[in-house]
C-alpha cells in the first residue's frame, strides 16, 4: 500500500502532464497542417544565412 501511495500520484501526474502538453500543442495550432509538417523537414534551406 505504501508503494501505491507514491506510484499512483506519479503515474497520474505524468498522464496529466501529457494531456496538458497535448492541449497546449492543439491550442498553438501544431495540428493545423499535418501534411505540411511532414513535408517541411525536406525543405532545402541552403540559401538562408
Amino acid at each position, binding site marked *: 500500500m505504501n508503494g501505491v501511495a507514491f506510484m499512483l500520484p506519479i503515474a497520474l501526474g505524468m498522464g496529466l502532464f501529457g494531456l496538458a502538453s497535448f*492541449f497546449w500543442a492543439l491550442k498553438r495550432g501544431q495540428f*493545423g497542417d499535418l501534411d505540411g509538417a511532414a513535408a517541411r523537414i525536406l525543405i532545402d534551406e541552403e*540559401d538562408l544565412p
Partner: protein
Amino acid sequence: MTAPAMHIAIPDDAVHSVLAVPGMHCAGCMGKVERALSAVDGVASARTNLTARTVEVVHSPQVETPTLVAALAATGFDAQPREIAAEPVSAVKPLLAPLGVAAFACMNVMLMSVSVWSGADGTTRALFHWVSALIGVPAIVYAGRPFFASAWKVLRYGKTNMDVPISIGVTIATGLSFYETIIGGAEAWFDGVLMLLMFLLAGRVLDAMMRDRARSGVDALLRQVATGTMVVAADGETRWVETKALQPGMLMRVAAGERLAADGEVLRGQTRFDQSLLTGESAPVPAGPGTLVHAGTLNIEAPVDVRVTASGQDTALSEIARLMEVAGQSRSKYVRIADRAARLYAPAVHTLAALTFAGWMLAGAGWYQSLVIAIAVLIITCPCALGLAVPVAQVVAAGALLKKGVLVKDGSALERMAEIDRILIDKTGTLTLGRPVPDEAALCALSPLQASVALALASHSRHPLSLGLVQALAARGILAALLEDVHEEAGQGVTARWNGLSVALGRPASAQGMATALRIQGDAVRLIPFADRLRPDAEAALARLGSLGVEASILSGDSVPAVAAIAHATGLTAQAAASPLEKQEAIQRLQNAGRKVMMAGDGLNDGPALAAAHASIAPGSASDVGRQAADMVFTADSLLAIPRAIRVSRKTMQVVRQNFVLAIGYNVLAVPLAILGHVTPLIAAVAMSTSSLIVVANSLRLAGEAK
C-alpha cells in the same frame, strides 16, 4: 527545424493576406513559394499550409496582392487571393480534444484495471475503482459530448441514429460502474466505456479529415470568377478593386484572358467572350460597344472597358443559385448507411437487453442481478466496430482516389455513387477539354524550325489559342527559338524578329472558326486551326461505364450541330440546347422513373443538375458553382476518373457491408455470453478492441483499389 531566419521587424501596420496556391504539393514547392514571397520587398514573412494549399503572407500595406501573385507566377505557381474571413471551419478540430482526453483517460484507467484483473481486491480494488472513477467520469462526460449532442438532436425530432445506442450504452455503463464503486463492488466498466469512446472518436476524426481534405482541395483549385479587377477611375488612373467592392457604374478594364468579375455593358473595344461555363456554348460570342456581358465569362481576344451594371448577388448567377437551392433538397433527404443500420440495430439491441432483464427476473434472480446482466448486454453490443465500419473504409477509399486525382467531398458521396445506373454527361468542358487544342495535322505539317518560332511567339501571349499552342508544342518536345523585339498587339497577335526575319503569330486574314496564322518572312503563311477536343481516354472511359452497367448520354447546353458532332464521335445519344432548368428536369424525369442518375458537368449552367442528381462529379477546371455542387471533383484531364470513381465507390460499399458482417458476427459470439451473465470487463475490453482491429484491417484492403 527552425523557422526561416527572417529577422525583419514586423511593422505595426502589417497586413495579413492569404493566397490559395493549388499547384503546391510537396516540400520543394513549399520552399519555393516561401522563398519567392520572402524575397518581395515589404514582405515580413510567408508561411505555407500544405493541407489547405494556401500561404499566409505578412506584409506592409504598400505591397498589393497582384505583386504577390506575380512573384509566385515568376516561379511557376498560380495563386489567387483568398479572404481570411472566409477561412473554413475545420471539422477535425473540435474532435481532436475529445479524442486526446479519451485516449489519456483510457490508458490511465486501464493501468488500474490491469491491477484489478490480476487479482487486486479489498481496499486496493476499491481505491483503484475510485481513482478510475475520478479520471473516468469527467473524461466520459467531456469526450462523449459529440455523441450526446448528436443523439439528443435526432431524438428531439423523434428519429434515431448510431449515436443513440452509443449514448444510452455509455450513460448506463458509467452509472452502473459508479454505483459499483460506491458499494465496493467487484466490477467497474470505466475502461471499456473509455475505449469505446476512443475508437468511435478515432472513426469520427478520420471521417472529418476526409471532408476537410477534400474541401480544402476544392477551395484551392482556380477560382473562376475573378476575385477582383482593374477599375478605371474618373481621372484615368487604374487600380485593383475586389469583387465585393464593385459598384454599378464603375468602369472595369478587362484584359484578354481575364474573367469578368461582374455583369456589365461593353463601352469600348471589340472582343469575343467565351461563355461556355455559363451557357455550355462552345463557340466564343463576339462583343462590342453596347453588348451585355456576364460575370464569370472569359474575355479571349482584346482588352475592353466594361461599365458594371450589376455585381454580387444581382448578377445573372443568382437565378442559377436559386434553382440549385431547390434542387439540393432532395439529396439532403438521403439517409447514410450507418444511420440506416442504426435504425435496425438500436431497437434490436434494446429489446434484447429488456428481454434479458425479464428472463433473469422470471428465472428468479434478484432485480439488481438481472439489471447488471442486462446492462452487460448493452455494453457488449455497443457498436464499437460498427462505428468504425463505415468511416474507416470510406477514408481509405477516399485517400486512394485522392492519389489518382479524384477529390471526394464526403462519405455519403461514395455511398450514393455506388448506386448509380445512369449517367448524364455535359459536353463542353466535361466530355471535351473545354479549351482550344491545335489541329494535329497542322502541327505535323510545321517544320521543326517553324514550330520553334511558333512556340516562342505563342509563349509571349496569354491568349487562349496561344496557351493551347504552347501546351501542344511543348508536349512534342519542341524548344522555343530566340526572338528579338517581341511585341503583342491586343486582338492582332505577337510580332518579333528572328535571325533578321520578321515573324508574326496572329489572327488569320480570313477568320473562320478558331485559328491562328504563323507568318515567317519569305515563307508561306501557315494556318493552324483549333478545336475543342474530347478528353483523353474518353472512349475507354465510356466503354468502362458500359461494362459497369451504367448507361451514358450527353446533356448539353450547346447548339445542336456542335453536340451532334461529339455525339457522333462517341456514339452516345444526346440532348442539346438544354437550359439549366431543362437539365435539372431531365434528371428529375429519369429519377422519377426509378433510375439512380449521376451528373457529370462543369459549368454554371450544370449547377442545378449537379445538385439534383443522385450523385455528381465535376472536372477541376469547372466553375466554382460546378465544383461546389458536385460530390466529387477530378483534377486530371483523363475521363477515366468517372468510371474509377464509380468502381471504387461500389468496392467501398462492398467492404462496408463486410465490415458490418464482421462487427455483427462479433456480437453473435459475445451476446450469448453476456445474456448468460458470463461477461466481465476484461472480456468486454478484449472483444471490443479485437473486433475494431479486424474491421480496420479489412478496410485497409481498399488502399490499392483505385488503380
